[in-house]
């Protein structure tokens, strides 16, 4: 005989009932346990009558396991409770995503940027080595994450309590809903502005920036380096392409994969050119009637150095723009353009 069958099986039943009782609300404990006990005894009696003998401990264990874990059994008698209810939960998740995207991701990017491009910050934080710096940043990130998400959670728990009492979310007006929009729709006003701005920019660019001597006055003369010619023609070409693209967008005001890809290419090229320009020491010479040669050289170098220092910011902005453009390409590939959608709907009817 195994050890498990040597004890009194009814002892298991009492222990089970006691465990369930622990999780029940006090005013109902007695009543619920009496009924549960009666049900279990009925089942045991019936099984014993079938077998023609008392149940052993293993058989009792099977019955109790079928009933389920005491906490779960008790839980079914408890009212449904939640810190954040089903009405607010989707909003809560949405806010968490926004916090993660606009607070935590920038936090990480700023840290990476500071470590890469700020020598003083890097020196300060890598005193204990790179591993120590990463561990320290990881710890700080956890703290920031818990603080941000914890704050949002607490706010929503409070909102849930208020909502449960006032039901403020039930008071809504369909007229106040945002207008239905197609994400691939291009506002015509935006296209008009783009055409005008690109054309004006092109004219100004040809008029002012075509020569290496961009400013030639008695008091000051600014000369660009020969590499500027590449930038001049490249930016002019981009302005023309953008103006044409905006013109097409004006006529067909929804993004297609092709036009979104062209926009990605032009934005990518513009970002690349800007990055190169920051590093290319474009300014060749500044001179003026009241500026000494040494001072002019100092100013020229300072401007070129300043431009080079701005490079990470330009790069970061370029990456953000490119990512947005890539997203637009995928969205345009996935979504049926609005006019085509209307045709499909008409065919379906």
């Amino acid at each position, binding site marked *: 005989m195994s050890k498990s069958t040597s004890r009194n099986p009814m002892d298991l039943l009492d222990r089970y009932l006691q465990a369930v009782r622990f999780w029940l609300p006090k005013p109902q404990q007695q009543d619920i346990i009496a009924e549960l006990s009666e049900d279990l005894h009925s089942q045991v009696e019936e099984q014993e009558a079938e077998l023609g003998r008392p149940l052993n401990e293993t058989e009792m264990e099977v019955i109790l396991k079928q009933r389920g874990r005491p906490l779960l*059994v008790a839980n079914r008698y408890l009212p449904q409770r939640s810190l954040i209810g089903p009405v607010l939960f989707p909003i809560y998740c949405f806010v968490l995503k926004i916090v993660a995207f606009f607070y935590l991701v920038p936090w990480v990017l700023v840290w990476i940027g500071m470590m890469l491009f700020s020598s003083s910050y890097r020196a300060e934080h890598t005193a204990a080595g790179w591993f120590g710096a990463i561990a320290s940043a990881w710890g700080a990130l956890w703290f920031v994450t818990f603080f941000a998400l914890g704050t949002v959670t607490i706010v929503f728990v409070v909102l849930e309590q208020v909502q449960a009492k006032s039901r403020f979310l039930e008071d809504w007006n369909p007229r106040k809903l945002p207008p239905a929009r197609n994400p691939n729709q291009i506002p015509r006003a935006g296209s008009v502005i783009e055409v005008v701005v690109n054309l004006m920019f092109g004219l100004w660019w040809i008029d002012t920036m075509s020569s290496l001597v961009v400013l030639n006055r008695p008091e000051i003369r600014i000369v660009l380096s020969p590499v500027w010619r590449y930038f001049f023609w490249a930016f002019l070409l981009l302005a023309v392409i953008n103006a044409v693209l905006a013109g097409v967008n004006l006529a067909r005001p929804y993004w297609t994969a092709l036009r979104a890809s062209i926009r990605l290419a032009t934005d990518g090229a513009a970002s690349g050119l800007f990055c190169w320009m920051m590093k290319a020491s474009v300014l060749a010479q500044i001179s003026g009637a009241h500026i000494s040669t040494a001072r002019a050289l100092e100013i020229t170098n300072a401007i070129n150095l300043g431009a080079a220092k701005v490079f990470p910011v330009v790069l970061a902005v370029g990456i953000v723009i490119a990512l947005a453009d890539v997203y637009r390409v995928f969205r345009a590939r996935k979504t049926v353009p609005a006019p085509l959608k209307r045709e499909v709907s008409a065919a379906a009817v």
Partner: protein
Amino acid sequence: MRHTVCVTYYMTNGTQGGPEILENLKLELRRGCLIVAVLAQLRTEQYGYTLRKALADDGLAIDEGTLYPLLRRLETQGLLVSQWREEDKRNKRFYHLSPAGDLILKQLLEEWESINTSLNKILQEA
């Protein structure tokens, strides 16, 4: 065309309809029916264990973890009345339908008939 759209949607977004999905849908379908079945069974007085057996014998097995909380809820809503009484040397809680429960059961059965008629109509149209 509509049929093609549905098939395309199923092929791109659907799953193979695993047993878990079926079980969940069956549970949802049974949930409302169980309440009607319990109310109908309790037109004659019964205690929990015999009620569970009777439902199981009629093909609507319900586990005790669902049945007893449901009985308590229905009693709180005034649809059932209960009474502790000794039978076979043990105290048992007997439930039966209250007058309000009787009325609600009639209304639920009418609703059931209406749903059944609509469903049959839809199935015949399909």
